[in-house]
């Protein structure tokens, strides 16, 4: 199909329809619309824009409704896209142009060296001692919340030493094996190869497939010192199994950060994840957000027979009864529900907060998660689930 000649079809000049007002260069205007969408965060690629132009040409480019539907079919790729698409569409065809050319996700960034925040005064000598003694073992067990900038950097490096295993489940598909049940197809095929003479009996049995792992990470204010490292932990798992690990952040709303964490570089991935999370360090409405997760993702299959790890301190500001009900739902869907609570490993901790009390009956495991050692423990629990 040739490139659409939109000018000759009277784009923007059709009588009786809302004028799109581009006059001279309509396909430039349409392609520009693609760019505006990209700027708003939609994954608009060049081939999609091309498809969009072809779609518009196949319809009536003078009709706003046709341009709208052509764009929605060609440029959107999920229900989350459509709301933003509607906004950009309305703005663009009202003649508004997005200001500045700042892309939503930075293409590259340089990390500036940070001044160490607690090197002043007499604490200096003390600190040097701790650092030299702690580089590995002590740091492994120290509470992440109390770490200095330098220790944090060291800890980030230590994440590289984690080698998470992933849980598996029995696969539906059978694979050739030396023992197991008889595989009639392969046996017959072998027989065929020998021109019908009886051949050696072939066997098959079920293989294993990775089991889905879902992380729900609380990013509310009270979890602030831990959220960063929990995301880092999730990142190492996503890197191991990009298609079977899903990561969401919870707080006042639910955000899926899996695509951001698929980026390989940890710093870049965390930065991208931070860009998409709108409720960083906000409040907690665990029950409501969990409900949104279950309605939109969990029940459809993301949580079904999966290992679900909820990382939260359980300081619920909303209704604890709602939280309990949602946890019951989650427990019914998931294969294992593991709750990671950073306070669990601290002396004097007792699960008495209303939130934690409500969820306790539905948990398969409650693990500590305030140190790297705690994370290792969690990874073990996940792998053995």
């Amino acid at each position, binding site marked *: 199909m040739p490139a659409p000649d939109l000018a000759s079809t009277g784009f923007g000049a059709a009588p009786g329809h809302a004028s799109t007002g581009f006059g001279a260069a309509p396909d430039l205007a349409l392609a520009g619309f693609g760019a505006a969408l990209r700027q708003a965060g939609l994954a608009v690629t060049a081939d999609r824009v091309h498809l969009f132009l072809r779609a518009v040409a196949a319809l009536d480019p003078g009709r706003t409704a046709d341009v709208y539907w052509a764009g*929605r079919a*060609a440029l959107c790729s*999920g229900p989350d896209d459509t709301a933003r698409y509607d906004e950009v569409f309305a703005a663009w065809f009202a003649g508004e142009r997005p200001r500045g050319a700042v892309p939503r996700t930075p293409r590259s960034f340089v990390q500036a060296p940070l001044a160490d925040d607690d090197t002043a005064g007499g604490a200096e000598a003390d600190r040097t001692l701790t650092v030299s003694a702690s580089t590995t073992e002590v740091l492994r067990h120290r509470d992440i919340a109390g770490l200095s900038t330098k220790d944090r950097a060291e800890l980030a490096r230590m994440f590289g030493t984690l080698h998470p295993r992933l849980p598996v489940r029995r696969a539906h*598909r059978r694979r050739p094996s030396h023992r197991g049940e008889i595989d009639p197809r392969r046996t017959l095929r072998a027989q065929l190869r020998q021109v019908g003479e009886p051949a050696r009996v072939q066997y098959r049995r079920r293989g294993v497939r990775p089991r889905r792992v879902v992380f729900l990470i609380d990013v509310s204010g009270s979890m602030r010192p831990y959220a960063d490292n929990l995301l880092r932990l999730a990142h190492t798992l996503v890197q191991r199994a990009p298609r079977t690990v899903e990561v969401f952040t919870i707080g006042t709303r639910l955000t899926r950060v899996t695509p951001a964490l698929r980026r390989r570089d940890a710093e870049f991935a965390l930065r991208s994840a931070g860009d998409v999370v709108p409720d960083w360090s906000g409040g907690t409405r665990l029950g409501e957000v969990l409900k949104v997760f279950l309605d939109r993702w969990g029940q*459809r299959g993301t949580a079904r027979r999966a290992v679900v790890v909820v990382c939260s301190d359980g300081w619920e500001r909303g209704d604890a009864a709602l939280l309990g009900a949602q946890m019951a739902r989650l427990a019914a869907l998931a294969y294992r529900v593991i709750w990671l609570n950073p306070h669990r490993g601290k002396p004097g901790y007792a699960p008495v907060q209303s939130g934690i009390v409500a969820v306790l009956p539905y948990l398969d495991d409650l693990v500590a998660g305030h140190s790297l050692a705690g994370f290792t423990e969690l990874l073990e629990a996940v792998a053995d689930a």
Partner: protein
Amino acid sequence: MAAVGSAGELGERLRATGYLAGDGLATVGYLALALKRPLLLEGEPGTGKTSLAAAIAEALGLELIRLQCYEGIDASQALYDWDFPRQILHLRTVEATSSDAAVEEVEKSLFDERFLLSRPVLRALRESPAVLLVDEIDRADDEFEAFLLEVLSTYEVTIPELGTVTAEVPPIVVLTSNRTREVHDALKRRCLYHWIDHPGLAREIEIVRTRLPEVSTRLAEQVARSVQRIRELDLLKPPGVAETLDWARALDALGTGVLDVETAAATLGAVLKYREDTDRVRESLDRLLAS
């Protein structure tokens, strides 16, 4: 296949089969036909994703070939397979009847068309024009998606023993997904995308009237209105159009011409599939049924 000239025409033809498509869906469906692109449909269960494929097939007078996806599905279940038992039988027959048959001849006859078991994708390519419905693609594994992507970009398949099968006319492909898993971006890029929402009140009444002409106008209106209100209740599983139709059918079968608290309570099982939802709706039946 009669060509469809515009989105409006496709909408009319679908309507004739009893499928009422909104303007958006008709437009996107028309684009899929005009640009020969697969159509990826997502939306809440029961909004008519699968039945759209059936309606398109009926409207255009084409055969509907359906491939139901599931975990672990592989190419031999989607494309083709050889009928080994029959091949062996054939071999034995040849052996018994003519001992001096040339080896090559026998070998060739083994991989004959008649031992080939065509599975949905191969059938769609060979019998095209046809409508190929790839149902619930999100249930299949990634590997299968990659395989499907390849078929959908070339519309050809190579069988080593027989050669390459190319569709003379690309089949009309409709993929559906319930979003249990994210469909790979590469596959999405090949497709036109449409999210099907629950219909509005007027259209839902019309759907009931068209699909179930035996149901009275009054009952159709009552059922559609109640379902619309039930959907606002924030349930575990809001009813889809399929449930609306089930409900109307159930009420009609009971011989009640009206929907009142009593009959509604007795037939809620047709609409709601969770005990929690049923309890919740039963509590507020009075309000739901108030016109």
